[in-house]
């Protein structure tokens, strides 16, 4: 026997390749963030050692300076388009001052709250990232968070003339930032960190709302438990400061350990497709201690998986997990070439969660494939 023959078996196992959903931009952004945390943590340790050697008692506030990552890695935020100018550090600029707090308007524009809701034109190279429905951080070209929503800012610069760009109305003025950071003067504010709310005792629905409002996300597991169930434990604890987008894991009263929480691809065609009835029938027939989110993969492209008629996909005998797995197979396999269900316009994303208490099927908007977990969670909360 040769190793090549065994390799051939493994080749067979990967003969079908699911659509690639890797995000290289996110790798770069998150990789830089990890590097910064590691570097600053090293510096913090070095500083502590120096202080000890010198016999100096260093009284430091919690989380002042650097913050070790708490809990799982934060989710990646969603880019927010912000207007930028050509102004950069060292250039001459205007010297007026705008004191403002940023807010994310309903149209997705990041503006100064109150008064006239002026759009802010940031220096060259600045970017913004949204976590949850309304928490936004602004980064300088080096990736450092220099501003965020809800925090009072002092932005040196001046009003500009009408211009075009994201969120700039052609007939209004806007505020050009002609100043290097810091824009925040309150020493108690830790930019790039959010405070985890205390959630124990709240209902799932209230806890989820509080987390999302804070720019955090629920862990994959917890957001689909019945909305009235009370939170019994959380991690990280309330009061901790964490990076926006961090998952906060919640435990609920009476909800057992979960079997699986993996995100799996699932296609269910729209109601007009007869096969969906079969799929729904299988899904709703499933009971047992299983909770699972199911989100469709990108809906373009084809699959090399063998086609099969719904009758071949009847769940085999076995545990509830068997039947669930069989049900999850169905949508991939109904994507046969020529099927009436393959047209993009006829598909909806369906997220299915199955728990001890039943099954929920939530329809997300069309063309929403590729949503990140946080966005799906948001949709589930509102659904």
């Amino acid at each position, binding site marked *: *026997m*040769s*190793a090549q*023959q*065994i*390799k*051939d*078996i*493994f080749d*067979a*196992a*990967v*003969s*079908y*390749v*699911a659509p*690639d*959903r*890797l*995000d*290289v931009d*996110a*790798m*770069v952004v*998150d*990789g*830089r963030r*990890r*590097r910064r945390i*590691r570097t600053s943590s090293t510096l913090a340790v070095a500083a502590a050692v120096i202080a000890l050697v010198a016999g100096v008692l260093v009284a430091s506030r919690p989380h002042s300076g650097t913050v070790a990552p708490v809990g799982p*890695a934060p989710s990646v935020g969603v880019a927010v388009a912000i207007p930028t100018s050509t102004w950069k550090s060292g250039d001459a600029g205007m010297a007026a001052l705008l004191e403002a707090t940023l807010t994310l308007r309903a149209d997705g524009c990041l503006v100064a709250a109150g008064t006239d809701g002026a759009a802010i034109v940031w220096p060259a190279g600045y970017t913004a990232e949204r976590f949850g429905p309304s928490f936004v951080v602004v980064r300088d070209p080096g990736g450092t968070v220099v501003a965020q929503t809800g925090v009072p800012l002092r932005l040196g610069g001046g009003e500009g003339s009408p211009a075009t760009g994201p969120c700039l109305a052609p007939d209004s003025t806007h505020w050009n930032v002609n100043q290097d950071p810091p824009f925040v003067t309150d020493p108690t504010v830790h930019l790039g960190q959010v405070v985890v709310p205390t959630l124990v005792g709240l209902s799932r629905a209230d806890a989820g709302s509080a987390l999302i409002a804070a720019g955090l996300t629920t*862990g994959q*597991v917890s957001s689909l438990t019945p909305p009235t169930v009370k939170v019994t434990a959380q991690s990280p604890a309330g009061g901790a400061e964490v990076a926006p987008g961090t998952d906060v*894991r919640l435990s609920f009263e009476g909800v057992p*350990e*979960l*079997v*699986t*929480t*993996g*995100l*799996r*691809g699932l296609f269910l065609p729209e109601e007009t497709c007869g096969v969906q009835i079969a799929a729904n029938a299988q899904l709703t027939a499933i009971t047992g201690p299983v909770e699972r989110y199911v989100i469709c*993969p990108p809906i373009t492209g084809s699959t090399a*998986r*063998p086609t*099969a008629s719904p009758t*071949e*996909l009847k769940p*085999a005998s*076995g*545990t509830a*997990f*068997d039947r669930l*797995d069989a049900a999850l197979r169905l949508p991939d396999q109904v994507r046969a070439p020529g099927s009436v269900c393959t047209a993009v316009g006829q598909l909806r994303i369906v997220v299915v969660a199955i728990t001890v208490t039943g099954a929920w099927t939530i329809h997300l908007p069309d063309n929403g494939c590729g949503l990140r977990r946080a966005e799906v969670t948001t949709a589930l909360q509102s659904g």
Partner: protein
Amino acid sequence: MRHEAEADFRGWVSEQRPRLRRTAFLLCGDWWLADDLVQDACTRMFSVWDRVRSSGSPDAYARRVLVNLYLDHRRRPSRREHPVDAVPDAPTPGSSPESYDAVVAALRDLAPGQRAVLVLRFWDDLTLEETAAALGASLGTVKSQSSRGIAALRAALEARGLHDLADIVKEPS
């Protein structure tokens, strides 16, 4: 310089992502989790890219990070898969014995360490010594894991009636 490193990293990801995704899938048996693992592994790679690039062996480093992430994931109490009494993926009657489902299901029966050894040895074409280095384990441990993994995979294939495939899965002579 920074842009050059980033461009270099992006080029490396573009080149390696198909193989890394397949390796991750063989380890975990779930394309969505596989992409999560590769995404995380590549993120970690970029955070130390300058050092990894200068070492001259980013592929080996990536493999090691990927396998460690997978094993860490399996160790977590909240891991996504729990063992079940019945095998979740029985082959569909009439389907090809070499089918994707059957082999992946058989791999799922293996202990995580055994699966990692077999995937690295036979899919990634590593020697026993290289596999040991990738896993940070001793050569003896890898040899025993490999031997047990082959036996377990053979048994898993037999249990699914895939006798032809089971006959192939033996320690290479």
